């Protein structure tokens, strides 16, 4: 049988194989054909696997996630020739369920960015409008899922790298609660923030993939036992208390079309039985970005110290050890990792530690407490995921601070370690608008339930108009 990969959910694909309607190999080839047809334009993939083993459906993997025998570059020249010798835990978990890696997806270098323009291998393009960015850092996984090049994918999220691309490409993406998904084998960026999570076409697919990858892992001591995942079925929101933080819905720079789509969805939520009430995160939104851009670079400067040309990755020659290391890092890192390494080293250096890193850690406490207080009264918090729809390639690349503001709405809950999920909620100027649902710690089941009911009521067609 022929399948329309633009329309097929992972759940439907699984059923086709279970029913014997299509073989795993036939399905895999259908996605390879879709990649052959559409990826030359979109550049979602850095590496395509011609025939990865397994008996199930394909999955695309962000290229910061280590895959045994399959190149893993993190979007960086410094790892151009790196081929992992072991699978990360999330990949091992996927393989146990028969999932087949169809390819490795493009990312901003070391997951540092909001557009994939920082990839050393060139940007990915938005399937809704190829002159625009797909978001980032996980723009490759987002473009792949949106354009039917994979039924689902894995991403990683430090300050919005799953949620924001999902918003800009119009599909579902979950940043799970910190500690629920193992990072063993994943290229580290900022270890107190990094989380791996699912990128999917439907909320049920997202919940199922989360159940596959989550759980305690003895190889990652920051992981914990995770509540059993419930695949959502309810189509109403009776009893759900939705908080609408006014700062997150009124921050400067939110486009009117984005606000309009989000407000319409809130009205829809009320009609489905939810209570919707305004609330406040007075300092989380105002100080979140500043806090993040101290803590994440500080941790990055330590994590990226390992790229020294000794054990793996690029080496550039030098007369002595120190010169070799400096030349290797000069040649191997692009501008964004260099900026963040230097900001981090500065914030941690003698004389500045208390003023920058130490202060940011206290602000993080403030952000966490503000969220904790709201979850005494609300089940989920709702806002736009991104203040804007997808922006043109090149529009912000020369202004790092403007680029950082793309994450103003995704960062606060990341700092607090909370789960956040994006669903598409409408169009503005013909481009998808993303709605962010934030839950309490380990509250994934609550946001799955809410997002599933909204998804059904919204009826958003996730296939990009130009591909229909």
């Amino acid at each position, binding site marked *: 049988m022929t399948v329309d990969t633009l329309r097929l959910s992972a759940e439907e694909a699984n059923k086709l194989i279970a029913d014997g309607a299509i073989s795993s190999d036939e399905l895999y080839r259908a996605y390879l054909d879709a990649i052959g047809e559409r990826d030359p334009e979109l550049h979602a993939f850095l590496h395509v696997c011609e025939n990865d083993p397994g008996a199930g459906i394909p999955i695309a993997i962000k290229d910061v996630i280590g895959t045994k025998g399959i190149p893993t570059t993190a979007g960086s020249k410094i790892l151009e020739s790196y081929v992992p*010798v072991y699978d990360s835990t999330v990949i091992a978990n996927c393989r146990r369920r028969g999932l087949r890696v169809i390819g490795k997806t493009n990312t901003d270098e070391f997951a540092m960015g909001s557009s994939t323009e920082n990839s050393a291998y060139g940007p990915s393009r938005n399937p809704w409008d190829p002159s625009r960015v797909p978001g980032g850092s996980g723009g490759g996984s987002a473009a792949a899922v949106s354009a039917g090049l994979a039924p689902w994918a894995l991403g990683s999220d430090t300050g919005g790298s799953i949620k924001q691309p999902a918003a800009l490409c119009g599909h579902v993406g979950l940043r799970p609660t910190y500690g629920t998904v193992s990072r063993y084998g994943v290229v580290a960026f900022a270890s*107190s923030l990094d989380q791996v999570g699912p990128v999917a076409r439907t909320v049920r697919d997202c919940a199922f993939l989360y159940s596959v990858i989550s759980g305690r892992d003895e190889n990652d001591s920051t992981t914990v036992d995770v509540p059993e995942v419930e695949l959502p079925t309810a189509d109403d929101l009776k009893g759900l208390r939705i908080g609408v933080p006014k700062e997150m819905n009124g921050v400067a720079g939110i486009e009117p079309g984005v606000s309009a789509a989000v407000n319409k969805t809130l009205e829809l939520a009320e009609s489905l039985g939810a209570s919707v009430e305004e609330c406040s995160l007075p300092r989380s939104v105002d100080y979140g970005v500043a806090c993040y851009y101290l803590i994440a670079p500080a941790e990055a400067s330590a994590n990226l110290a390992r790229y020294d040309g000794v054990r*793996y990755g690029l080496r550039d020659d030098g*007369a002595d050890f120190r010169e070799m290391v400096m030349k290797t890092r000069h040649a191997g890192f692009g501008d964004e990792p260099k900026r963040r390494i230097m900001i981090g080293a500065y914030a941690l250096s003698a004389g500045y530690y208390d003023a*920058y890193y130490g202060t940011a850690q206290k602000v993080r406490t403030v952000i966490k407490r503000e969220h904790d207080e709201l979850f005494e009264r609300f089940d989920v918090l709702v806002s736009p995921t991104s203040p804007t729809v997808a922006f043109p390639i090149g529009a912000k690349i020369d202004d790092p601070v403007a680029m950082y503001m793309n994450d103003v709405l995704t960062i606060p809950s990341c700092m607090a370690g909370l789960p956040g999920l994006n669903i598409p909620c409408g169009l503005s100027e013909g481009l998808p608008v993303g709605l962010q649902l934030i839950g309490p710690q380990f509250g994934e089941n609550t946001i799955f339930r809410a997002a599933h009911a909204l998804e059904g009521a919204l009826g958003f067609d996730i296939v990009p108009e130009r591909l229909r």
Partner: protein
Amino acid sequence: MARITKEEVLHVARLARLELSDDDVAKFQEQLSDILEAVSKVSELDLSDVPPTAHPLEIANAWAEDVPRDCLPLDDVFANAPDRDGDYFRTPPA
């Protein structure tokens, strides 16, 4: 807030073991100053009674049984090494 100087850019690049070209120094001096100005916003808050948060989970220690496990074979360990001398990574002299 003061912009950072060329010397500070070079100092922090040395700390981070990054070689920079002259053009890089000028560009990063500008960009890092803009970024530091933006992140200095954290100093506006009164945080005198607020403890720091290092990570969002309430776990202090994670214990594991101390039992030997298989580790990677040496050929795997060296599979991505730029240079190898027997069971050692080879580098230029320190």
